[in-house]
């Protein structure tokens, strides 16, 4: 798990994870986004390759020019110079459910083989061990976005074979699952972690490894995943960050390192 690209500025795996997530956004995308790493990555995309990415935030915020670093969907820094401040119904109903959002961008909780998300509880219904915050707008995003982007730290407990509780639907039980329950089957998921990028296999609907973080192997990823992900035929390595992009992330997007972890901000070469 070492990174060996000494000609580049040192960067942490968390930084590259945010940068790689930002790369998933195309200019002009309308992105429904929560705070934390999703908002960091979206802001970074706006300040680098995709200036016309539009953010929509569930508290009723449309097209803000986010100031660093909002810690909440109701933080005024997330509302700075918005084009509209309105209501939850306007953004979750009249944009998201209406089909006008291109990408839903959420942070992780439990994500299973079929990209179902659990943010409600650890332990199955009837045998809860730990209560989590609940859906919020996540179920709505997973139900209505054609593209769902997830950013999360990669560890085994976060990637079970099957979520204890399906808060937000991925592909449910696999091919045809969404159509069977009445959800739009036109759906794609990308999961960006500090070890890899996973996407749903268009045929099986299961998450599979499409890119690896520098220095990470397929076996490293599988060791930290509760199910056994397949590997896409065109497996590649996540490119290291441009110095310019890294600089923007560190100095413009989260200069206070509110979400970027300080302990591995400038990793040593041997990490």
């Amino acid at each position: 798990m070492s990174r060996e690209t000494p000609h580049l500025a040192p960067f942490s795996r968390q930084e590259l994870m945010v940068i790689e997530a930002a790369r998933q956004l195309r200019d002009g995308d309308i992105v429904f986004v929560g705070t934390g790493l999703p908002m960091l990555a979206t802001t970074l995309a706006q300040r680098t390759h995709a200036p016309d990415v539009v953010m929509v935030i569930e508290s009723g915020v449309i097209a803000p020019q986010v100031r660093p670093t909002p810690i909440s969907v109701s933080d005024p820094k997330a509302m700075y110079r918005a084009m509209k401040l309105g209501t939850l119904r306007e953004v979750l109903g009249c944009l998201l459910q209406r089909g006008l959002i291109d990408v839903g961008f959420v942070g992780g909780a439990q994500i299973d083989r079929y990209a179902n998300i659990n943010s409600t509880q650890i332990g199955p219904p009837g045998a809860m061990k730990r209560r989590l915050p609940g859906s919020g707008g996540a179920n709505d995003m997973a139900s209505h976005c054609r593209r769902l982007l997830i950013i999360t730290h990669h560890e085994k407990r976060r990637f079970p074979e099957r979520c204890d509780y399906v808060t937000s639907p991925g592909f449910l039980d696999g091919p045809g699952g969404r159509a069977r329950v009445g959800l739009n089957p036109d759906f794609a998921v990308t999961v960006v972690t500090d070890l890899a990028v996973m996407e749903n296999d268009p045929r099986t609907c299961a998450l599979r490894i499409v890119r690896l973080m520098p220095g990470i192997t397929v076996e490293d990823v599988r060791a930290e995943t509760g199910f056994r992900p397949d590997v896409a035929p065109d497996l590649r390595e996540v490119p290291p960050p441009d110095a310019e992009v890294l600089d923007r992330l560190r100095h413009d997007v989260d200069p206070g390192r509110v979400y970027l972890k300080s302990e591995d901000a400038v990793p040593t070469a041997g990490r």
Partner: protein
Amino acid sequence: MLVMPPNKVMTAAEAVARFVHPGNVLGMGGQNIGRCPMALTHEIIRQRVGGLTVVGCNLSLSMDQLAAAGLIRRTECGTGNLERFGTTFSWRRGIENGTIEIEDYSHLAMVSRFLAGEMGLPFMPVRSLLGSDILWAPDGAPKPGKAVITENPWDPAERVVLVRALQPDVSIVHAQRADAVGNVIIEGFATHEPEMMRASQHVIVSCEELVTTDEIRAHPERTTIPFMYVHAVVVQRYGAFPTSTYAYYDYDGGQIGAYQDAARTGSPAIDEYLRRHVWGCGTFDDHLHLATDADRLTTLTHAMQELM
């Protein structure tokens, strides 16, 4: 016949005594660290109005203090959390130890329930929740009464969920401005509050500033909620502290953190927090004296102004 009293202005103590009763369904305004109705919440705690069903979209600091005080029987919401400040620990503890019942929805499903309520409809269709466990009871069985899956009569292949209308007995909201008859101006983001307030049987609004009805009439397009829905107006500067009020003051991370530290550890720290900050204070102004000072409040005001 709805009578329009010439003056709905009263103290928080009067408003809570008149309109919040044990066992009520309580609609909660605010979201996360923004415009939580803290002054009104403290007053409910001070009067120990219990057995409440607290409803809203995101429930955060105000709900958790009610939970810490043992006043919540049940919640119906989309989330309980404080984002960067952690989860709502008292709520989580109540759920985990079985003292708080929960009914989970998505945010859109909750606002759809308020939408049905405000329009006088028995239910509202929503296309969220399909395929998720939110539709079902904790034991995994279909939960009668929560939601109904139905077909689009014009396209039987299409399915929607019907969620039941929600009309809280009373809602509490902190707004920027209101007049004495109850016209309310919410500035900036408004979350689920307009639908919830219009759906409620009673609404108590606390506000930063009381304006004249002439000022309301001078800009009628800025009125968020007209007087018909509002039963009490409580004038309380910094009434959302330590959460923020858009255009007025930013949140106070230190004070939110102090509460969270107590809530995370539970008894006796959390009881002590409430004893000092709520039961030990006759009014919310007393709490402000205890928890902050003029310099800090000026700093929070400047921090917000800098973002306008």
